[in-house]
């Protein structure tokens, strides 16, 4: 069984985000790019399954322009066997469902039996594509998993269930799983891995390769995203004075009750 891992290039978590002049996106000039942190947990889980003899190959699937190839190489350097970049002018402006159609088609073409993704990409924070891929393929899905075991065709995983509780659930491959922090500790690339990754070719598949005709790109999108803006400014706060920690604590409690009215 081949395991697919979705990998997305995103701005680093410590990046400041600046809005561009016409509010259609962010300024990317000074952005440091990283692999989406949740995708690292997905890749690590896939590599561990491969090392346990439960997968024949780990295939990185990544949608993006040529400038994202450094991130794909990072995935290869950590141990993925091959990688496909999914790119076509026809994909530009896709909403999540359009992106899911591209990835679902790529899963079929690459004969993926288990797709591992991050629970969310930390740029758009949409939490949409993996579940949409699962629906398009008719596969089971488990979201935001913190444990994973594969025995034969049975996947057993823990997911958050709200109100602080969790569910241990089972599904069968083929399936889509999204990975949460805590599932594992991602490995770093080794020097040998980096050298090997340099020599590997990254395939690039477009709409024609994937047999996609419509349903992708801006024309196929139901969702329009616009009006990028900085977050609303918070009103200025104040520092609480007092002779002692106890006096400051008393004053804070008074303010929270009488001024902010939150206790």
């Amino acid at each position, binding site marked *: 069984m081949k395991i697919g891992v979705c990998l997305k290039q995103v701005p680093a978590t410590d990046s400041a985000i600046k809005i561009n002049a016409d509010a259609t996106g962010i300024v990317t000039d000074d952005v440091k790019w990283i692999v989406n942190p949740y995708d690292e947990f997905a890749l690590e889980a896939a590599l561990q399954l491969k090392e346990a003899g439960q997968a024949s190959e780990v295939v990185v699937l990544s949608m993006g322009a040529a400038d994202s190839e450094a991130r794909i190489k990072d995935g290869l350097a950590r141990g993925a066997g091959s990688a496909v970049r999914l790119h076509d002018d026809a994909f530009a402006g896709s909403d999540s469902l359009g992106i899911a159609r591209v990835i679902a088609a790529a899963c079929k073409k690459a004969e993926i039996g288990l797709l591992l993704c991050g629970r969310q990409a930390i740029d758009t924070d949409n939490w949409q594509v993996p579940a949409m891929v699962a*629906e398009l393929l008719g596969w089971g899905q488990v979201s935001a998993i913190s444990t994973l075991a594969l025995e034969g065709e049975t996947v057993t995983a823990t997911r958050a269930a709200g109100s602080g509780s969790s569910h241990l659930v089972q599904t069968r491959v083929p399936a889509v799983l999204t990975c949460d922090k805590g599932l594992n500790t991602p490995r770093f690339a080794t020097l040998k891995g980096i050298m090997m990754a340099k020599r590997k070719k990254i395939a690039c598949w477009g709409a024609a390769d994937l047999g996609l005709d419509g349903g992708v790109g801006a024309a196929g999108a139901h*969702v329009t995203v616009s009006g990028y803006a900085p*977050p609303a400014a918070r009103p200025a706060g104040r520092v609480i004075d007092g002779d002692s920690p106890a006096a400051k604590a008393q004053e804070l409690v008074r303010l929270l009750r009488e001024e902010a009215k939150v206790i």
Partner: protein
Amino acid sequence: MGSGILVFAESDGGQVKKTAFELLTKARELAGALGGGVSAVLIGGGDTAGLAAHGADTVYTVAGDAYGNYTTGAFTRALQTVIGQADPAVVLGAASPVGKDLLPRLAARLDAGLGTECTALDVVDGQLVGTRPVYAGKATVTVTISSSPAVYSVRPNSFSISAGAGAGSVVAVDVALGADDVLTQVVEVKASSSAVADLTEAERIVSGGRSLKSEENFQRVIVPLAQSLGATPGASRAAVDAGYAPHSWQVGQTGKVVNPELYIAAGISGAIQHLAGMRTSKVIVAINKDAEAPIFQHASYGIVDDLFDVCPALTEAFGAALGD
């Protein structure tokens, strides 16, 4: 084209969750501008009268053994069936663990657009517009959806709740589940180990940073302060990575995004990735002995002092103020 707004009301152990009332209150306001009625769907049981009292004209109910625990396949089929019957223009749900798993699958099945985890919904020129944080709150965008229905999920605690009676007629819907709808089984439910709300739903949070220096200090300083307020304990990434607190406590861009009424940050400097996870909190209190810590620029109230002195004093003061 459908009309009206359908709210997916989550319930937990037969108890309708607070988010359902937040969504219904907002749905009433939006329906006034968009036209059409407000309905709710309750899958697996719960109090329909409460939904009516917050504005549902119709409450669709789906009952059966398949809905005792949430599973993606059964709930997707149930919601799809109700939508087929109710034909709403807009479907609203909570951006909860269930909503984040269910709504994208539903949207794909309906060939519909989805706007995730909105913090505002408004009607502009007759069209529904969602506002949502991106880059973990370092920016916001507006989202419009051309499909019918349009599906939006909403961050818990984004909207206030007010009562407003709806007609509340109850319509039981029969859902035919096929083998394809049973893709996952819940084999074990692990109940929350704490009595407090999950971070993502909490109204009060007390978080600690690396300055706590040890897991023992988290238990000794942060946990009692949280308990004095009925708050949920949280932590910064630095504290989690140092092993002082579990992953499930992490607030920030690679942890949980929270939206409480009151957020108390003790010994947290305010790294950009932490601020991203808590900046929509209504009131932020920062306790840090470093007056230059970036967290103070975002705090409603700041105390510049040693957290090991302030937190116990605060625990006592909250206990005295809230215990009466």
